[in-house]
């Protein structure tokens, strides 16, 4: 799959956050979007996901992609978890194509066993972030889109998460925003200003 972002412009309340921005996102490639706060990283991801419409320019799915929307495994800027439910339920609830046993196995790759059956509201910020990462990676998807996925993680967890994401990326593209590009040398770094 190829996503073509062409000459995109987006502003909020008269403040321009993206201007004439272009990027081609292709399968098997990783894109590490970095830049200062407010430079439009999150806006770009929201445009790709179809959650926002550009003021000018286009975001198109090219090639023989058969669906009208992007089937994306997504990590949002916030965790966006259902607080009352445990990690396993938070991951299984989003898709009928994932099962409890598989999800438990996936969660155990990033989280200690005692954490995965507690309501997520009882988990630490870092643990919740890891649940959000597993949720994005465990469901079948054509692209991984991650907005600051390593927020709140210590260096060791961050490294484990990078390895996990790389392993789960498969043949689809990965688009990831971050302030800190350490350990992300495998991807094409796009500096936004």
């Amino acid at each position, binding site marked *: 799959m190829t996503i073509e972002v062409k000459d995109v412009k987006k502003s909020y309340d008269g403040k321009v956050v993206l201007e004439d921005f272009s990027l081609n996102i292709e399968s098997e490639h990783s894109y590490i979007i970095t830049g200062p706060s407010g430079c439009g990283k999150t806006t770009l991801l929201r445009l790709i*996901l179809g*959650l926002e419409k550009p003021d000018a320019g286009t975001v198109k799915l090219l090639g023989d992609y058969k669906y009208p*929307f992007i*089937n*994306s495994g*997504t990590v*949002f800027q*916030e965790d*966006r978890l*259902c607080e*009352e*439910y445990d990690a396993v*339920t938070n991951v299984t*609830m*989003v*898709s*009928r194509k994932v099962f409890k046993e598989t999800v438990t196995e996936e969660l155990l790759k990033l989280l200690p066993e005692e954490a995965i059956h507690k309501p997520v509201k009882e988990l630490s910020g870092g643990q919740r972030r890891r649940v959000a990462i597993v*949720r994005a990676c465990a*469901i079948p998807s054509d692209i991984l889109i991650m907005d600051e996925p390593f927020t709140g993680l210590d260096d060791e967890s961050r490294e484990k998460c990078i390895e996990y994401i790389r392993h789960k990326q498969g043949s689809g593209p990965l688009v990831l925003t971050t302030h800190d590009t350490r350990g992300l040398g495998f991807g094409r770094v796009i500096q936004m200003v």
Partner: protein
Amino acid sequence: MDLLKKVLKKGIPVLLWLAIWQMVALIIHNKILLAGPIETVRALISLSGTADFWESVAESTWRILLGFFVGAVLGTGAAYLAYTKEFIRDFLQPFVVTLKSVPVASFVILLLIWFGSRNISVIICAMVVFPILYLSTLEGLLSTDVKLLEMAGVFRMPRTRVIRYIFLPQLRPFFQSAFKLAIGMSFKSGIAAEVIGQPLHTMGNGLYLAKVYLETGELFAWTIVIVLISFICEKILALIAGETK
């Protein structure tokens, strides 16, 4: 020990009020103006020995609960539709405001002309419960976390799961208070409708006959039975709401 304290804390004021009631009844010394608690219990024992009493209790309770159920289902369903489509919300607004503000008695008289007295309490209860459930459910739905809904949209989460995992936890406190209010209102309005419509073998009819024959003891006895049934239904609903957590 704690339980005993709790019982005493709640029981002593009740006993004091019963004593005051009995004293006032003794002072007035007129069973038509005010029947005392002893007189009321006597009337209750006498009533409960008749088959007509139990038939009235069963008939009224069944009809009121049916009305409650119909109103709750329609109110919740309409709220969901109103949440998904703004024009439905605008369309229903005058209807809900009318149901909320028009006195029950006006509806009862109108419905008596249209449908007769048999099912009056079912329809009135449904009409009273509908706006309560509609407004509470709509408020709950509108206050649902939009970020979670956006997440559900991005992951193409199945609709049934969105309802189960995102909407229902959000709606639970709204449902709990709405059901509590609605069940109490159902019994109040349902019995009022029966008193006006006088369908045979109902608690409302029993109240009406007690008034006609100036049987104040019976009037109080029926009132106690209605309050008791309403209280039991409220507790059962609270239990169900608690168990589905």
